């Protein structure tokens, strides 16, 4: 009796037995007394109900522990009864990671298991970016009559790691995103670049090889050739990971944060390829900052960061978040000429104010906004209008906005680029 709890499943049967017996006595019908007798037997059966010691070995196999996004991974759950008694009623629910959806077959198992026997359940999950650890498996055991039940959680460590390659898609028209100011920045600061800027009067200390000897020969004046200063752009990808950004048009769809991280990782790779120095930041309760840099090591770091950093997890964070503190911290970290690509669904006004404040501090801001709105409810239709108004407000204040709907990101970029060049 020590294990498990009473389910109260048979409560009231004792009453029926008594009533049957009473009616039997009252009407002098022995058959009813026999029926009551059968009831007493069942009561005895329920009374002796007990659950043996549960000793299970649970193993889990993944067909692929490091899949690509959208791959279907087959999970095999093997449960072995290592105890010495038969488990008559065993119900098992596996702890599928919250961010993973089961594509086929329930992650459950119901069976009776002899000592030493093994039961198997197979199901398929669809991989999404991130590091996903399985949670405890819930084991419910009942005695054969169902009068006593026990519940325990058995944890078996299994991790599925999905780290998409950071290869830029070849046909991604990122020039729209970068032509204006990303890539090499041609500054207006006269300096020691390659492109000719102007000629000015010689000042003491100018390098000899910068002196315009042609002019000296022609006019006898000393003049210095000045070239345009040129620097690699530093771009920081800021992903909106606030709880507000964890929205999706329906249960099956990718969340706005997942799409934002997608957009950021694609842009990261493309910008790195075009020679920029790229950094990554999360704007949300979980802190994440990767300072702008370049090179193969940096690419590998970013890849790991996008896949496994808790800030970019597809599940909503639950820590406290102070957005104005976060904006200030972000500003301190950004170099004064750093450009910002802000990935946010813009489903609330704060996202807009972040973009506008960064723009006001002198950073060139481009907003890449995955559209999570739908028209399924009254509120959803309003949210769509509100988001449209926010996009207009941002565009009016000079922030470039890429509205990314259901189409591939490349299509949205191309469309936005066409709009800008007009």
């Amino acid at each position, binding site marked *: 009796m020590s294990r498990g709890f*009473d389910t109260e*499943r048979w409560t009231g049967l*004792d009453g*029926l*037995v*008594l*009533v*049957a*017996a*009473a*009616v*039997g*006595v009252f*009407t*002098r*019908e*022995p*058959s*009813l*007394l*026999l*029926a*009551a*007798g*059968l*009831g*007493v*037997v*069942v*009561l*005895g*059966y329920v*009374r002796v109900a007990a659950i043996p010691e549960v000793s299970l070995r649970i193993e889990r196999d993944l067909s692929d522990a490091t899949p690509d996004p959208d791959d279907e991974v087959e999970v095999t759950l093997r449960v072995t009864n290592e105890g010495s008694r038969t488990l*008559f*009623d*065993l*119900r098992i*629910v596996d702890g599928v990671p919250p961010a993973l*959806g*089961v*594509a*086929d*077959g*329930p992650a*459950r*198992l*119901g*069976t*009776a298991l002899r000592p030493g026997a093994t039961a198997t*359940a197979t199901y398929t999950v669809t991989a999404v970016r991130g590091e996903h650890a399985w949670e405890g498996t819930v084991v*419910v055991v009942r005695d*054969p*009559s*169902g009068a006593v039940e026990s519940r325990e959680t058995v944890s078996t460590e299994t991790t599925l790691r999905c780290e998409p390659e950071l290869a830029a898609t070849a046909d991604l028209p990122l020039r729209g995103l970068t032509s204006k100011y990303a890539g090499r920045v041609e500054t207006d600061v006269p300096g020691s670049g390659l492109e000719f800027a102007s000629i000015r009067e010689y000042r003491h200390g100018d390098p000899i090889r910068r002196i315009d000897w042609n002019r000296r020969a022609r006019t006898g004046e000393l003049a210095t050739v000045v070239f345009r200063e040129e620097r690699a752009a530093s771009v920081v990808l800021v992903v909106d990971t606030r709880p507000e950004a964890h929205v999706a048009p329906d*249960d*099956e769809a990718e969340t706005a944060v997942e799409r934002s991280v997608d957009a950021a990782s694609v842009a990261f790779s493309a910008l790195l390829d075009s020679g920029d120095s790229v950094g990554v930041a999360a704007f949300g309760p979980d802190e994440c900052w990767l300072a702008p840099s370049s090179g193969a090591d940096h690419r590998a770091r970013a890849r790991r960061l996008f896949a496994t950093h808790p800030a970019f997890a597809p599940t909503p964070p639950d820590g406290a978040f102070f957005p104005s503190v976060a904006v200030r911290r972000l500003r301190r970290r950004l170099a004064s000429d750093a450009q910002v690509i802000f990935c946010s669904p813009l489903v609330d006004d704060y996202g807009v104010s972040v973009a506008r404040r960064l723009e006001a501090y002198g950073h060139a801001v481009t907003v890449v906004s995955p559209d999570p709105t739908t028209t399924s409810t009254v509120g959803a239709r309003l949210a769509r209008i509100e988001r449209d108004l926010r996009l207009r407000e941002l565009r009016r204040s000079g922030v470039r906005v890429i509205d990314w709907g259901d189409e591939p990101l490349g299509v949205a970029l191309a469309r936005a680029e066409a709009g800008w060049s007009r």
Partner: protein
Amino acid sequence: MSEITRKPTRTGTAMALSVAGLTTFTLGFTTSTAAVGGLVATVALAAGLFRGSRRIVDAAGGLFFLSLLFAGASGAGTEALLLATLGSILAWDLAENARSVGEHLGRETDTLRLELVHAAATLVVLAVGAAVVYGADRAAAGGQPITAVVLLLVGVVALVTVVTR
């Protein structure tokens, strides 16, 4: 798929309704009123399983009980009544178990083995119990003096009180 269907399993529903039908058939050998009661109880059980409602399944069990009482009170044969009692308890047990398994594991999970084992366990207990009770009755063939009946009733009441948790 995103969520399981938390409805009584098909296996359990089929088994429970078959047993309920057989019980109604058995009640047909007692009185017609009891048979009608059994029929109503079977319909109620089907409704409870369709809706996945514990209350309706319990109510169906109650209806079976009333049918049994009525059959017994109007002088039903011992064999028929004992068989109908066995059937009533089994039908309710299977239906309730189907509901519980459906709630835990849903209709999508393969629970055939689980439910067959449960049904077999209950059936064995009921069959052995019925055999013992019937055997005791036969051993005392010739009609029990009412003194014995009352003493047994007092004994049953006292023992049930002890056994009840």
